[in-house]
């Protein structure tokens, strides 16, 4: 099972805290996110990925506590047991 945790604006706008997804084989992050959209019936990918399939700058995707920018981005392979955190961090002080 893979756990996707939504925080801050995502949680507020989607009205859900997390989604657990059972995957029978490893899949890429991009495919997992689309799967999560299908399952949750909530649109959120446009806040993470631009039209050119690039990661948007405003939100953070952590896989097991590591930013996907240091992994393979949207092509990062996700396996059972992985935990994903999605949030736009606060910038003010």
């Amino acid at each position, binding site marked *: 099972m893979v756990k996707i945790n939504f925080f801050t604006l995502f949680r507020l706008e989607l009205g859900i805290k997390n989604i657990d997804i059972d995957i029978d084989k490893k899949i890429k992050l991009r495919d997992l996110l689309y799967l999560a959209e299908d399952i949750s019936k909530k649109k959120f990918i446009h806040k993470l990925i631009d039209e050119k399939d690039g990661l948007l700058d405003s939100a953070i995707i952590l896989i097991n506590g590591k*930013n996907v920018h240091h992994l393979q981005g949207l092509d990062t392979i996700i396996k059972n047991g992985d935990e994903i955190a999605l949030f736009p961090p606060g910038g003010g002080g």
Partner: protein
Amino acid sequence: MNDIYSRNALFFSKEEMRSIKNAKIAVVGVGGLGCVVSEILARMGVVSLLLMDNGIVDMPDLGRQSLYGLEDIGKRKVDAAKDALLKKVDTCKIESVFCDVNKNCPVELLSQADGIVDCLDNYESRFALEECLSDTQFLIHGGVENDYGQITTVIKSKTQTLKDIYPNMESTAKEDFVAVSTPVVFVTASLMAQEVIGNIIKKPNLVNEMLIVELSDFSFSKIKLN
């Protein structure tokens, strides 16, 4: 047992109170977060505080920046904050430096601090501040927006840096006006002060963990950082 710190002294050990007293802490950014953080630290007995900011007190600041009042409009924040703190607690020594972390950061002064508190309002400055951090100094990072905030401890020899956690944030446009609610500023800043004290007494909670504070549902979530 009637001094300013006596109630805290009933809770913390003598050794911990000594560590708190002897700690040198730099609060960088004396806006919403920095006002509350520096007030808590001063009231708890941190004697040596360094305040850094390049801002001037403006009317909208009064909505959430607890050390300022109407009479401070137009003053340098670092000066108004120092005056306000010394009126509350006259035992602390406060050095105030009017400066922009990106342009004329007093690296020498920062290097003397045991810990630095990131109360800045943009990521470009946060990354510049992090550059000044030694391998062993602790940096308490906080950020707020709308009604949520996040906090973590950065120690270069032990944790990810802000650049590791937020590699894509530097390029984001610097917003002049960030939407923020007053309660989340006070809550997040109070927790940052708690983490400063935690680091001083060697009991930090957010080393390799990020705390997300959400007032919309009163939730506190910890994310493990690797």
